């Protein structure tokens, strides 16, 4: 080997991988945060339901707390967090 690479310092950025670019509840982009937070990122995460709809975690929590039936606001199926 003429040239040997010993180490690599690399850089990457991350974005939410959502099927939509806006939260269906607060209508704010997923790149931003929900209306109660100031800073997007780890402190304002997204969650996915089994129905494949995605929301700001804070938004869906607020929605579920206000409803009697635990259903997804987009498709009215039962809301369940999609596990890994």
């Amino acid at each position, binding site marked *: *080997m*003429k*040239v*040997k*690479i*010993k*180490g*690599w*310092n*690399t*850089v*990457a*950025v*991350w*974005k*939410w*991988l*959502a099927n939509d670019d806006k939260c269906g509840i607060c209508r704010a982009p997923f*790149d*931003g945060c929900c209306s109660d937070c*100031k*800073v*997007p*990122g*780890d402190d304002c995460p*997204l969650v*996915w339901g089994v129905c494949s709809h*995605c929301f700001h975690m804070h938004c869906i929590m607020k929605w579920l707390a206000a409803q009697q039936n635990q259903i997804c606001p987009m498709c009215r199926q039962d809301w369940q967090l999609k596990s*890994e």
Partner: protein
Amino acid sequence: MSLRPKHVNFDETWGTLRRTIEGVVTLSKVPRVEWNDRFTDVYTLCVAHPEPYTNQLYSETQTFLRKHVQALRTEIEKYESNSSLLKVYYDMWVKYSQGVEYLNKLYSYLNQQHVKKSKLSEADITYGGVTDMPGHMIEIGELGLEIWRQDMLEKIQDTLIELVLEAIRSDRRGDTAVSTTIVNGVVHSFVAVEDPKHRIPGDPHTHLTVCHPFSASPTFYEKAFEAPFLQDTGRYYQQEASKLITTCSVSEYMEKVIQKLNEEDMRARRYLHASSYGKLSSECHRRLVSDHLSALHSECRIMVENDRRQDLTNTYGLLKPLASGLNVLADTLEAHIKKEGLEAVGNLKPETAHMDFVESIILLYKKYKDIVNTVFKSDQMFISSLDKACTAVINFRQCTKNPCRSPELLAKYCDALLKKSTKGYSETEVDEKLSQSIIIFRYIDDKDVFQKFYSRNLARRLINHLSHSMDAEEAMINRLKQACGYEFTNKLHRMFTDVSVSSDLNNKFNDYLTKEGIKLPISFSIMVLQAGAWPLQQNPSPFAIPQILESSVQKFETFYGRQFNGRKLTWLHHLSSCDVKLSYTKKPYFIIMQTFQIAVLTSFETCDEMVYRDIREATRLTDDQFVRHLQSLIECKLLECDDKEFTQDSIIKLNKGYSNKRAKFRISGAVQKETPQEVEQTHVSVEEDRKIFIQAAIVRIMKSRKVIKHNVLIQEVLQLSNGRFSPTISVIKKCIETLIERAYLERTPNSADEYSYVA
């Protein structure tokens, strides 16, 4: 002895009383027994039976005093217009006033029982506007002084006052032939003879109340003495000033004037009554300073330019009492600082522009801050002159089209200080210099431009591990936060968070590798950043990653996918770098280079010569990126090419005879230099951010106001953006237009300059 009223023979008792009074008034010896008897006599006369002789006693005493004073006057007139008149008058006055005071005591029964009754209350005097009625009885002491005024002072006042003025004049000439005590005593006698209604008995400073706020008419002292005295003084200093101004320079003139004002102040205290101190000094000030204001003002510029601090101190002291005297000086100072500043930053060498710019402004600021503090006693007016001048210098634009460079230069200055390669500065020095840069930061209008440049530089330092110390970085951000608030440094803070989160992530990744039993061919480290928080360029070019790195990318993506749900990673290869060992050279070299550079270099694995086109295709870089990195490798002599300009068929050779004194170095820096395009880009992105900020501001205002006039809206937008940048009116108008198009607001139908919010 009985206190009961009885028959008395007035003439007889008055006869005895009169002899004693004579003794009292001339201060000759009066035995105690005699004093006591006469005291009783006053009493008996006042309570005599069947008719009290009070009025008779009063008028007889009055006649007596008047005769006595007239006798004294006849004597004094012998000295008419003779300088010893002052002394004679003074002696007589001292004796007489003392005598009258005793007499007042002798008559205390009469004073208390009869005068008090007819005396008006203080309130009547103050508000009633009652003038003394003829035949109205006043205390004997007052009566004595009244008579002295009428029969002595008013008769000889012209001669006497002329003599006093002459005495003071000769004192000004430095000739103190006339005793201070005498002149002072005479002057104060003018105050003392005044109606003592306003005097507080027993208080030596009674004079202060002579200028009773309610006494509309001037007192005897003011009318007879003070007015001519001030006139005389004014005339004297008028002559003196015009004499001085023609013979001295302005600087000498001020020295002399200050000396004269001080002397005159001392003189006032020696001779005058306290109520005159202020009047005298303002009269002198008027003649010596106000009358020659233009001469003083004309010198301001030269004094400021030549940094004549003593003269400036003098000018400040002299002009301060005048209402608008300092304006010219403050304006001159401002203009001068501005001129000096613009000269200092006018011609900057491009390479060291940031250093020279910041340091010369700091120097300028410190110099004038010091002058403002010491010479101008931190006067608010001069502080604002300094502020205005600094703002003008720092935000100066050569032409209105180009953006101001100061924010960029300042950010670069901070970058240079915070980088590892800070030569020769100790930590405390760096710290001090950074604190100073905040001074300039506060004056910058376009703080958002600074923020943009600063955050880009910070991103570069963090990603390439170039920071000198994290403590220094954080200290600087805290300073900015203090100066401009949390919003301003929010993104910078998030960048720091990402750095620490990434270092955790690297540890977790390494644990994961060990647990899974995977061994990567290289040592791998990564920074995973939040897309929104970092001012990063998108990938500038497609890129075929060298194969050896591929497995690391795959392994990390798997790991990251398990760690976090729903996140997409984008690799920024143009920001990453490699540690590389060269083994084709005589001795091994360890080089840190960019990933794009290593991709070019690894193409030579199987051969020593390649055609331009082939390498480019192997790396899949775009032409401009490829040229840039190829060029950098040729510049540092790792590669060779005979062609000056690359063509698709240029032959690139590996330099096998490469040698360098250093075995470990970095060539990644060469391509990371900020290009003019990037600067341009930064300014463009600032413009974009501003538009978004203004639009958000407008929507926020409209949401709360619903309906608003055009001008009010502009004002409120300006207010909201104050402290970040100052938008032009035309930009705000454009933003309003955009928002109308996008149906956030509309023009109200019945008014031309009004908008309403569309919910």
